[in-house]
């Protein structure tokens, strides 16, 4: 049972300060151990054979020659991964994505795997596996996949929310909104309607997927893995392989980025199956090419937006139709785009329709505030266009229409206290908005929304006899959470930050913890840490009472020590946490605190960004001159890492907006699976990203925390789109706004102008 999580306006001594992160030294010296940084005695090397076709029937897989190769210890295909999913189509999809079952559904789809004594032997074995394919028609474009005559990616799929029972690539049609949009448009003085496209991007985490799996003939196994959620990986792998959950121990390594891409299993069930067959540990590491071709990037999208407003700037109606591809397996990415699209605004008449569409590309995974950036690109672009048409400042226009407490969100519920208005006011008053711009330079701003959530969480806090404290959490630390959680434990116990050591525990040491996703790490484990520490404080008070031989009701805890209340106890000297820890063997044994809970009530999150861009009109090249992020954090536990999340999200959004793009050939094969041809921003591409943290407490967290990890990837596509459009005088409607695309837009606009002049 979760104790009352309500916000209490607690005064802090440590929370809000900026101590050094406990994992910093290991990370800068190379001592930190990531997914590929561990080995086991007798370890084999795993390798995966992947489909060279976008869509093909697998006629036959002949492994006989590979099996005879010296040093090969195991080869598996889908035949070694029987369907144990008991009719759960979602789980079967996960299994089929890990290893093709009769058909290869995208370029890079795994078809077989090998475990051998070394990498060279494993590679040679892959070359000896002969796969007979029959190529099938493919489709990789989201709009083309919706056509009636498009090749079917998953013939069993019927459209949920549609009116046809025929097989279709359209997985679902999801409609959100309220009011009467047509009546609203009829009241508008100005209506802007425009279509937009965004290309597929990858999270671009620097560390590829990697794991070390070991399964014995007794059915017990271990998995060391880079993941955002080792408990979920354990449950998924155990279910797919028919193992008992308690007999599969999963340990999360340090993580070199995930951003949603490490919330899904890709190679882990394969490594476990290889290990089980070989009866040896198997290490499996994806190459960068594998990561691009066969892990989970985001959707490409095609979005239509229509917004109408009165001349006074009040929006009367808004509508969006959003088509997102899911890759080769059903997802809910279009639905999420529809839910998030108009969430920043207070609208009487609003409708958003999301289409989830199958294509022959890798299964789409979450990417930081999944689906929201693409929707925001279209909506925030049209909002800017509408403000300009009316002759109103773009920030004032947004402020006039911003959602607030009591607004019915476009996806349904009524908002409690929210931060969109304050972030917009902060933007309006920010010096960045008054800075002068030069030639070929433009400024843009945009706002964004993300849900955030909490979830299942379990935490232990153990006090050593020297008074130092081990905090064991089950949420993977993706962005400095161990520092924040140590601060929270120290705050509650009243001890120095340095006295706490926070560890991410393995799956045998704690109850289930959900993924570190949905900006939940510090929100949920922070809540659990508070309750575990308070649980420990109650035990510390009991130990003090025993030491003093008084009733515990006379003991109170403050500033890291127990004191006895009342005049009759005034001769008793306070007992510090260290005193009580040292005496603990004789007062009842070890002192610990524990918490298991469901952390609901995460509260929604908003951010507003400002961006200055310079465009070279000769080449279309862009330079980000200045970038400012304003976001509501609820309460910044460790401001350095809150700012780091803001900056990281903005940097990824900038890359997405300007350069990053999956390029597929006519053959349905990915043309640029590497960082040379898939261009993510590096330090020299970016200015220092300024941040402004707003703190509007979340009423559903004792400290007022809101998740901060995702929201700031939502505005950059649109903020940069608006900045580029203002710089060149041409509305950009296709992301990424790479130099060729900008140059094309400039030339087309010039040609159109010339035509008008000539005509």
């Amino acid at each position, binding site marked *: 049972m*979760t104790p009352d999580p309500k916000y209490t306006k607690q005064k802090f001594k440590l929370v809000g300060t900026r101590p050094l992160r406990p994992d910093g030294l290991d990370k800068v010296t190379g001592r930190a151990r990531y997914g590929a940084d561990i080995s086991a005695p007798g370890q084999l090397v795993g390798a995966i054979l992947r489909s060279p076709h976008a869509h093909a029937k697998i006629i036959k897989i002949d492994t006989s020659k590979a099996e005879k190769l010296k040093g090969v210890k195991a080869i598996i295909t889908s035949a070694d991964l029987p369907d144990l999913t008991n009719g759960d189509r*979602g789980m079967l999809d996960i299994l089929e994505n890990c290893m093709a079952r009769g058909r290869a559904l995208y370029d890079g789809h795994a078809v077989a795997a090998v475990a051998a004594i070394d990498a060279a032997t494993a590679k040679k074995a892959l070359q000896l596996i002969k796969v007979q394919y029959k190529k099938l028609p493919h489709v990789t474009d989201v709009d083309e996949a919706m056509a009636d005559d498009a090749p079917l990616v998953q013939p069993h799929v019927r459209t*949920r*929310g549609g009116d046809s029972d025929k097989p279709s690539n359209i997985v*679902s049609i*999801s*409609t*959100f909104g309220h009011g009467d949009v047509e009546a609203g448009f009829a009241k508008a003085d100005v209506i802007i309607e425009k279509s937009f496209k965004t290309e597929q991007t990858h*999270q671009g985490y620097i560390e590829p997927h990697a794991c070390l799996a070991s399964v014995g003939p007794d059915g017990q196994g271990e998995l060391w893995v880079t993941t955002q959620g080792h408990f979920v990986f354990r449950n998924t792998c155990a279910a797919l392989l028919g193992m008992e959950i308690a007999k599969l121990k999963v340990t999360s390594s340090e993580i070199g980025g995930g*951003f*949603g891409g490490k*919330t899904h299993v890709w190679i882990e069930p394969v490594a476990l199956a290889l290990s089980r067959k070989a009866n040896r540990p198997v290490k499996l590491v994806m190459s960068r090419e594998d990561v691009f071709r066969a892990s989970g990037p985001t959707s490409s999208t095609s979005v239509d937006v229509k917004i109408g407003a009165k001349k006074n700037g009040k929006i009367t109606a808004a509508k969006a139709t959003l088509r997102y591809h899911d890759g080769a397996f059903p997802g*809910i990415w279009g*639905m*999420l785009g*529809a*839910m998030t699209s108009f969430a920043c605004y207070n609208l009487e008449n609003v409708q958003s329709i*999301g289409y989830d569409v199958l294509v022959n590309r890798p299964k789409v995974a*979450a*990417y*930081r*505030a*999944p689906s929201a950036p693409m929707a925001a690109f279209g909506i925030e672009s049209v909002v800017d266009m509408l403000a300009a048409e009316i002759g109103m400042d773009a920030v004032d226009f947004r402020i006039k229409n911003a959602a607030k407490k009591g607004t019915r969100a476009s*996806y*349904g*519920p*009524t*908002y*409690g206290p929210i931060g969109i208005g304050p972030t917009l006011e902060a933007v309006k008053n920010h010096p960045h908005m008054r800075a002068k711009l030069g030639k070929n330079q433009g400024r843009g701003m945009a706002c964004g929304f*993300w*849900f*955030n*959530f*909490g*979830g*299942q969480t379990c935490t232990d806090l153990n006090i050593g006899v020297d008074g130092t404290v081990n905090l064991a959490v089950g949420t993977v630390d993706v962005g400095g959470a161990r520092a924040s959680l140590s601060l929270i434990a120290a705050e509650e116990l009243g001890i120095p930050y340095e006295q706490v050591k926070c560890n991410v525990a393995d799956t045998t040491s704690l109850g289930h913890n959900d*993924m570190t*996703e*949905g*900006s*939940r790490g510090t929100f949920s484990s922070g809540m659990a840490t508070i309750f575990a520490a308070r649980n420990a404080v109650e035990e510390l008070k009991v130990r003090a009472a025993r030491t003093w031989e008084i009733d515990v009701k006379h003991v109170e805890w403050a500033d890291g020590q127990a004191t006895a209340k009342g005049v009759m106890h005034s001769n008793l000297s306070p007992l510090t946490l260290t005193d009580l820890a040292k005496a603990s063997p004789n007062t009842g044994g070890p002192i610990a605190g524990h918490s298991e809970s*469901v952390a*609901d*009530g*995460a509260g929604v999150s908003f951010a507003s960004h400002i961006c200055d861009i310079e465009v070279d009109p000769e080449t279309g090249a862009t330079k980000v001159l200045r970038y400012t992020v304003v976001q509501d954090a609820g309460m910044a536990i460790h401001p350095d890492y809150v700012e780091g999340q803001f900056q990281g999200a903005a940097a990824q959004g900038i890359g997405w907006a300007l350069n990053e793009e999956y390029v597929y050939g006519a053959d349905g094969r990915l043309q640029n699976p590497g960082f040379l041809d898939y261009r993510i921003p590096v330090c020299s591409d970016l200015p220092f990203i300024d941040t402004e943290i707003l703190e509007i407490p979340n009423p*559903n967290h004792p400290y007022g925390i809101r998740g901060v990890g*995702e929201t700031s990837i939502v505005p950059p596509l649109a903020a940069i789109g608006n900045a580029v459009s203002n710089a060149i005088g041409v509305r950009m409607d296709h992301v990424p706004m790479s130099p060729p695309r900008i140059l094309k837009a400039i030339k087309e606009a010039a040609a159109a102008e010339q035509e008008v002049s000539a005509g």
Partner: protein
Amino acid sequence: MLEVQLSGSLRDAAGGAASIHINAATIRELFRKIVEQHPRMQASLDEGVAVSINGEIYRDDWAQMIPEGAEIFLLPRIPGG
């Protein structure tokens, strides 16, 4: 009696209804009665549904009490990145 608002694919599972009326004091009771009235919604509940009670979204705590006359929205369970 609660008016439970539906959106997205949940409407389809309820035969296209924008809302359904149910008498329930907790999320657990709400889910039980939803399936009794609309058996097709079992699949949606199995996939994961969140409940918004007066604007607060609950994904996992089925013991959560629902105040009389509360604004209730059923939402798809949302993944994050």
